[in-house]
C-alpha cells in the first residue's frame, strides 16, 4: 500500500485538518431547509393532511387541465418531504414541471390518542378520504395514485378495493413479497410478539431508525461520515448531505395498532402475496388490480429487496404492467443523481403514453 518509512505524523496532521474543515462546513450547513415546492393543505382527517402543490410558473395550464391529478401516498414510517427535498432533487417538482396537478398525503405524527388507529382507518378513512376529496374537486374522474414504499402497499390495497377511483397506479420501492430470502428486516421481525407492540403504545421514530441503521451499521453509521473526508467538501455538497441526514433522522412515531398490524399481516404472514388480507371486511386480491401499473424498484435496496417488489408482476391482474429497475439503493431511488435522471422521466412518460 505504501513504502516503509511513511510518516504517520504527517498523515494524521493532514487528516486532522480535513476533519476540522468538514466539521466547520457541517456546522455552517446546520440550518439548511428541506422541502422546496409551495403547497397548501386542502383536507385533513385526524393527524393526516392532504396537500395540493401549487402549479409552477410557466408550467402548462392546458396540460394540467387535461391531466388527471396525481396523488402521492408516502410511507407512514418516514416523512414525505424526501420527494421534494430541494429543487434539483425533487420528484414532486419534476411532476409539476410536466404540468401535472400533484397532491401529497402527509400522515404527520400520531399521538397517544391515535395509538389504536389501525390500517383499515389509514386506508379507508385517511387515504380514502384524500381520494374522495380529490375526486370531488376534479369532476369525479378517477385519479392517478403514486405509492411509495409502505405507501405503495397501502396504495395497492386501496386500488384493489376501489378500482373505480384509481385510473393508473405507480408503485415506487414497494414491497409485495415480504418473505424473499434476502429480506433481513423481515427475518428480524418475523417472531416479534405483535400483541406486545400494541400494548407498549406508539413506537417512537428513533426505534425504527435504529432498526434501519442496524441493517448495515458500518456503512450507515460510520463509513458515510468518514467518506466526507475524501469526498466533495463544497458547501453545496455538504448541504445536500445535511438535508439527507435531517430526513433520515426525522422519523415520525408509529401508531401502535397500525404498526403491529403491518408487521403481523405483511412481514410475518405475507398476506398480500397469499391473498389472505382483509380490510374493512373485504378480501384484498392483487389480481383485482386491473389498472395500468408501473412498478419501479431499486436494485441495491437493502430495505425492500428488488425481488420483494418484482413479485408484483405475477400477482396483479393488470394487462398493462411495466416495471423498471434502477441501479441504486432504497433512499437513492428518491434522491440520487442517477434516479433523478431516470425515475421522474419514466413516470411522466408512462403517464403521458396512457393519457
Amino acid at each position, binding site marked *: *500500500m505504501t513504502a516503509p518509512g511513511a510518516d504517520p505524523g504527517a498523515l494524521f496532521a493532514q487528516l486532522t485538518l480535513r476533519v476540522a474543515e468538514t466539521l466547520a462546513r457541517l456546522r455552517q450547513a446546520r440550518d439548511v431547509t428541506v422541502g422546496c415546492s409551495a403547497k397548501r393543505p386542502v383536507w*385533513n382527517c385526524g393527524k393526516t393532511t392532504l396537500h395540493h402543490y401549487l402549479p409552477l410558473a410557466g408550467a402548462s395550464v392546458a396540460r394540467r387541465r387535461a391531466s388527471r391529478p396525481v396523488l402521492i401516498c408516502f410511507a407512514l414510517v418516514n416523512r414525505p418531504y424526501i420527494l421534494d427535498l430541494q429543487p434539483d432533487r425533487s420528484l414532486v417538482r419534476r411532476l409539476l414541471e410536466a404540468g401535472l396537478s400533484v397532491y401529497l398525503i402527509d400522515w404527520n405524527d400520531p399521538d397517544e390518542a391515535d395509538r389504536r388507529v389501525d390500517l383499515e382507518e389509514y386506508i379507508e378513512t385517511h387515504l380514502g378520504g384524500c381520494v374522495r376529496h380529490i375526486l*370531488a374537486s376534479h369532476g369525479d374522474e378517477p385519479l392517478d395514485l403514486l405509492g411509495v414504499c409502505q405507501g405503495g402497499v397501502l396504495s395497492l390495497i386501496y386500488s384493489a378495493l376501489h378500482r373505480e377511483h384509481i385510473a393508473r397506479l405507480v408503485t415506487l420501492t414497494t414491497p409485495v413479497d415480504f418473505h424473499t430470502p434476502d429480506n433481513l428486516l423481515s427475518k428480524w421481525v418475523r*417472531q416479534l410478539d405483535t400483541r406486545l407492540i400494541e400494548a407498549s403504545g406508539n413506537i417512537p421514530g428513533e426505534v425504527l431508525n435504529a432498526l434501519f441503521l442496524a441493517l448495515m*451499521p458500518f456503512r450507515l453509521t460510520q463509513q458515510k461520515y468518514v467518506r466526507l473526508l475524501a469526498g466533495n467538501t463544497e458547501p453545496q455538497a455538504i448541504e445536500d448531505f445535511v438535508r439527507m441526514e435531517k430526513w433520515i433522522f426525522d422519523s415520525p412515531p408509529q401508531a401502535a395498532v397500525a404498526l403491529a398490524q403491518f408487521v403481523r399481516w405483511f412481514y410475518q404472514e405475507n398476506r398480500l402475496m397469499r391473498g389472505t388480507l382483509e380490510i374493512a371486511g373485504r378480501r384484498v386480491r392483487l389480481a383485482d388490480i386491473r389498472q395500468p401499473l408501473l412498478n419501479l424498484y431499486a436494485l441495491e435496496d437493502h430495505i425492500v429487496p428488488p425481488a420483494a417488489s418484482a413479485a408484483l408482476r405475477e400477482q396483479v391482474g393488470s394487462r398493462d404492467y411495466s416495471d423498471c429497475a434502477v441501479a441504486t439503493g432504497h433512499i437513492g431511488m428518491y434522491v440520487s443523481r442517477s434516479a433523478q435522471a431516470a425515475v421522474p422521466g419514466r413516470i411522466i412518460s408512462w403517464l403521458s403514453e396512457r393519457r
Partner: protein
Amino acid sequence: MENPFTSAGSRPEAAFASAAERFFELLKAFGMPATGQPPNWSSLAAPLAGQFEQWLRMSQAAGPWLAAGGAAWPGASAGFTAPPSASFGPLPLGPAAAQAGEVQRTWELWGRLAQLQTRLAACWSEIANTAAQRFVARVGSAAGAPATPEQAMKLYELWVNCAEEAYAATVHKDDFARLQAELANTAAALLVEQRRHAETLVRAFGLPTRNEVDALYGQVKDLRRQLAELTDAARPARAGESRTGGDERAAARRREGPAPRRGSARRTRARRPRA
C-alpha cells in the same frame, strides 16, 4: 464516547465527529505509530477485533430494536444489565406499592434481558473476530501502513467491507433473528409491566389511567362515527326535500365537509371518522 445514533433527531456533526474518532482509532490499530516498518498485520487481528467488538457492544447495545430506546422508549434503556432503580421499579408508596407478584415479574424480565444481552454479546464477539480475520487475510502481508489520506481511506474501505460481510453472515442466521425477537419481546413486556406499575400509582393519586383514557377515546370515536352516519343519512333526505338532490359534485362536497381553514395544516379534528 457518545453514541449519536441513540438520540432523537439529526446531529450530523456529532455523528461525523464520532465516526472520525473511530477512523483515527482504526488507523492507530493499523500500526500507524510504528517506526516506518510495515505493520505486522497478523498480530493486529486480536486488538482490531477487540476494538471493533467494543464499538459493537456500545452502538448496538441491546440489538437494533432497542438501541434507540435509552432516549425514546422508556422500557428499552441501553444498559440492561442493571435494574432500573431510577425509573419505575417497585413503587414505595403505601397504597400505590406494586404487588409482590408484579415486582417479581419485573425482576424476572430484567434477568431475562440480561441473559439475552450476554448471548448478543457473543454474537458481537463472533462478528468482530471474523471481520478482523477477513481483513488481515485480504490486506496482504506485504502491505505497508498508509502514507496519504487516500491510502488510509482505501484501507478503511477494505475494513468496512470485511466488517459488513462478517456482520451480514451472522445477522442473517435464524438463531440471531430469534435472539433479536426475544430481546424485543422481553423489552416490550418489561415496558408493559412498568406501565402497569405506573397505572397503579396514577390510580392512587386519583388521576385517569391510560386504560380509562383509551376507553374514553374509543367512546368519542364511536360517537363521531355515529354522528357521521346520521349526518350522511339525513343529507340526501334533506337534499331531496329541498330541490335538486342530483348534483353529484355538490353531494361529494357535502360528503367531504367544508374546506379547511387557511393555515390549518396542523389541525387535527377528524372530519369524517368512520372506523
